[in-house]
């Protein structure tokens, strides 16, 4: 697995597959990227569980927060890590102790730990490092272009609106094949 470049198809398949996401290191401070990402992913239809021992039992972006991964009462598809790279091995060990196992370990922009990644991959998990799922979702759905950002994708298929609102797009595109 080349962790310097990810194919769009790899990222898209991850974000299309996972339904439940634990955000380890979610902040209650509305100016922090980890708060934005928690809120954004919840608004895009993912079931999001913030993990932050200092905030356990309280809400972050309106979501009940847990002290540890194992406290979350549902199977977790993806663990998104908002911790410095040196703390990643512990989080990965905690994730690998879950049953059922998560499908994906995701490390945020600037976070990378190749050893922990290999360990997770050896256990059959997919790994993404040094990327932001908010940016990747917005890039692949087409939303990010609304801010003038280069999505590095082109498509002649009509984007689909997500849910009831007018300013949210789905990762899917129009087409007859369903």
């Amino acid at each position, binding site marked *: 697995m080349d962790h310097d470049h990810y194919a*769009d198809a790899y990222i898209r398949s991850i974000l299309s597959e996972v339904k439940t996401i634990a955000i380890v290191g979610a902040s209650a401070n509305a100016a922090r990227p980890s708060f934005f990402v928690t809120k954004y992913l919840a608004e895009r239809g993912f079931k999001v569980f913030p993990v932050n021992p200092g905030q356990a039992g309280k809400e972050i972006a309106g979501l009940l927060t847990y002290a540890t991964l194992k406290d979350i009462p549902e199977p977790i598809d993806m663990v998104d890590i908002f911790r410095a790279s040196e703390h990643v091995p512990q989080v990965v060990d905690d994730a690998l102790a879950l049953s059922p196992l998560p499908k994906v370990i995701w490390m945020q922009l600037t976070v990378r730990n190749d050893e922990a990644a290999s360990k997770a991959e050896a256990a059959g998990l997919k790994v993404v490092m040094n990327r932001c799922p908010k940016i990747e979702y917005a890039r692949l759905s087409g939303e990010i272009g609304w801010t003038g950002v280069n999505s590095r994708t*082109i498509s002649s298929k009509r984007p689909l609106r997500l849910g009831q609102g007018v*300013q949210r797009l789905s990762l899917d595109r129009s087409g007859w094949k369903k």
Partner: protein
Amino acid sequence: MSDHTPGFSTLAIHAGAQPDPTTGARATPIYQTTSFVFDDVDHAAALFGLQTFGNIYTRIGNPTVSVLEERVAALEGGTAALGVASGHAAQHLVFHTLLEPGDEFIASRKLYGGSINQFNHAFKSYGWNVVWADPDDISSFEAAVTPKTKAIFVESIANPGGIVTDLKAISAVAKKAGVPLIVDNTLATPYLWRPFEHGADIVIHSATKFLGGHGNSIGGVIVDGGTFDWTASGRYPFLTKPRPEYQGIVLHETFGNFAFAIACRVLGLRDLGPALSPFNAFLILTGIETLGLRVQKHSDNALEVAKFLSQHPAVAGVNYAGLPGDRYYDLAKTYLPKGAGAVFTFRLKGGYEAGVSLVSNVELFSHLANIGDTRSLIIHPASTTHRQLSDEQKTLAGAGPEVVRLSIGIEDAADIIADLDQALAKL
């Protein structure tokens, strides 16, 4: 198209544009509206707090303008872009984002005259102090660096034309000084030259010129290369300090390698206000679809015209980097393998009088102050744009009394040459 990198012409047509999600419209719609309804109160709060992507108010962003932004970002190979009301507005917002009162920036002496005015007068009133350097002498850039230097500004191909800037060499000076290199790529366009590949950190455009290309709309674009490390020096507080305007958000931390473009939008465009009209964005976008075809033809025509002029008995000399023997020919070969652009100057043996009479003798060329139109354009700077300057100042600015500037259009080269031939014959 997954994981195959599209070529320039494909990006020029497709980047940023998708069928409209509500109507299926394939051409980019002109969203001629000031404002956009929110899904609910929470959505509005998230938009104002920069927590989600979306549209609020056309001064800050508009879906027609954002297609243009993404397209130019893709063509330049940048991470993000911002469309604004004019090329000058683009420069204003870039420097507003980088400089504080009392700061300095180094600029090439060889620039579009309007930019020289903007830097010498308007910017000085903000306390942003320009220090001029000579693009033909890289050491003059090095010598101009002081602890107050915050940026270096050059044009890739410099207006009035003919000058090719050694971007790699100037980028080395910028890197050593720890400041971003800003390149005005108006005259080259990303078809001929992509400055990010040679060390630029920020690219700006007067989209009024070749991007729009049809002489019908004023516009500007700022492109973020995503290359500059804003945190290294701590000297760019717009990007690295918590912003009180947005509940303490730190832009580089939240937006990573497109934080500069976001800063220009949410701190510059929002507060200073030079928004691009959606209609102009639409016209510029339509122009960009044929950018590669047009610029190749502009450049091929220019080379033929330059060759013709260089052999004409009434002409004292031609400054076109595409001509073998020109002082910038080697730089053009390095940086501009597809052609040296469409704008250049030449000198008439008959001096000022000949210049004045040439612009009245032409019948196909239009006598006006723009460049980068489908039509061929001509101007005699000494009697128009540079009229106020002394003869010595005119010569220093490359606009001596005998100088004529051309912007070669995409008519048939034979017709462009025939028009100059008949006009020169009447001198």
